[in-house]
């Protein structure tokens, strides 16, 4: 699994976005930061709680100049049908068929043939600044990802359990 400081592998993949099939390159994304979500599969029961959760928080991420992109091994047509079933997903769902992108990020489960539940945040230079992987049965926290995105974007030192609007620097530190 890649770690903070590594250059984010480039992608140019088919995707489903806004109810249509398309294609997306990493270089086309012009926001300051990118949240890249890997998830195991469309048409499952835990993944939609995350995918819809990030969709519902899209405005909060946009306010932080952060784009959301998700990827699984499903093809674009399946992404389209699934997104429709979920009531529409605002951000692109990449069709990482074969799992090349997940492999490049070191989060491909070869035994199961699908991506692990992993999150990467990329900065403006498309360097990985945050990464986390969850067990397949445990969904990610949308609010935690947003909290980390806010903290990273602040460019300041953020103590444990820091929340947006909270005090920067270690406890007792006069910032």
């Amino acid at each position, binding site marked *: 699994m890649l770690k903070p400081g590594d250059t984010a592998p480039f992608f140019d993949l088919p995707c489903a976005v806004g109810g249509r099939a398309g294609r997306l390159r990493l270089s086309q994304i012009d926001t300051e930061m990118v949240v890249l979500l890997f998830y195991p*599969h*469309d*048409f*499952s*029961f*835990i993944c939609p*709680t995350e995918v819809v959760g990030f969709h519902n928080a899209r405005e909060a991420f946009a306010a932080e100049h952060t784009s959301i992109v998700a990827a699984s091994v499903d093809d674009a047509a*399946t992404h389209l*049908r699934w997104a429709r079933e979920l009531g529409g997903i605002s951000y692109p769902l990449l069709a990482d068929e074969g799992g090349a992108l997940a492999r490049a990020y070191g989060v491909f489960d070869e035994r199961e043939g699908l991506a692990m539940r992993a999150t990467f945040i990329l900065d403006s230079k498309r360097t990985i600044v945050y990464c986390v992987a969850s067990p397949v*049965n445990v969904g990610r926290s949308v609010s935690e990802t947003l909290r980390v995105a806010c903290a990273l974007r602040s460019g300041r030192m953020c103590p444990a359990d820091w929340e947006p609007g909270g005090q920067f620097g270690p406890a007792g530190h006069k910032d």
Partner: protein
Amino acid sequence: MAALDPSEKKRLIERLSSIREIVFGMQDGILTTAGVLAGLSGAVAVHRQVILAALASTAAGALSMGAGAYLGTRAQTEVLTSELERTRQETAAEPYVLQEGLLHQLEREGLSREASYRVVQLLSSAPQALLSTAEVKMYGLSRQALGSAAADGVTMGGAFLTGALVPLLPFILIPSAGPGDYLGLIAAMATTALALFAVGYFQGWLAQRGRRWPSGLRFLAIAMGAAVAGYLIGLAIAPLGGAAPGQ
């Protein structure tokens, strides 16, 4: 052939599930009693005493087998019931885990991911349907496996008793002319072999096999093989008791 009504089919399958107790009990009753008759006929000269000993052995065997089946089924039922209850609690606490597990299992059995998802989603609208399907598909647990301990005990004991009568009846009905007259014993052994074959044949018929004769012969060979092996082991260890074989 007209298809059976599903509820009738279910009842038939439940009845057929007793085949284990019936085959096991009958085979044991036949072989144990034949062994007692053969062994005692060589050692005891009085025909009537051999019959009494065989009857006592039959009664003890039937009770023992019936009690064993009762206790075995009861233990199995308790363990399975406990597992089913645990599954029910896990489902209530973490339905997603069960849904994902069932989805994977359906995929493994040939449904597409999307179709599996829709099936599980439909089942999820009725939690009991989801749970009972998951019990069978994911854990191989089935409420049908929760047999009745009393019924299994009676079936096993009855089957043993029925099997025991096979060698016993000809032995009783053919009186002995004295020491050296083995006509009753020969008749008992002949009916034993015939009955063992018949049990195998019947089992083949129940399983709707095209080849019932091989099923009967296989059953006869395995059962008689076990009996011969037991006899040979007896011969081998007889010297340890201080007696020469046959004495």
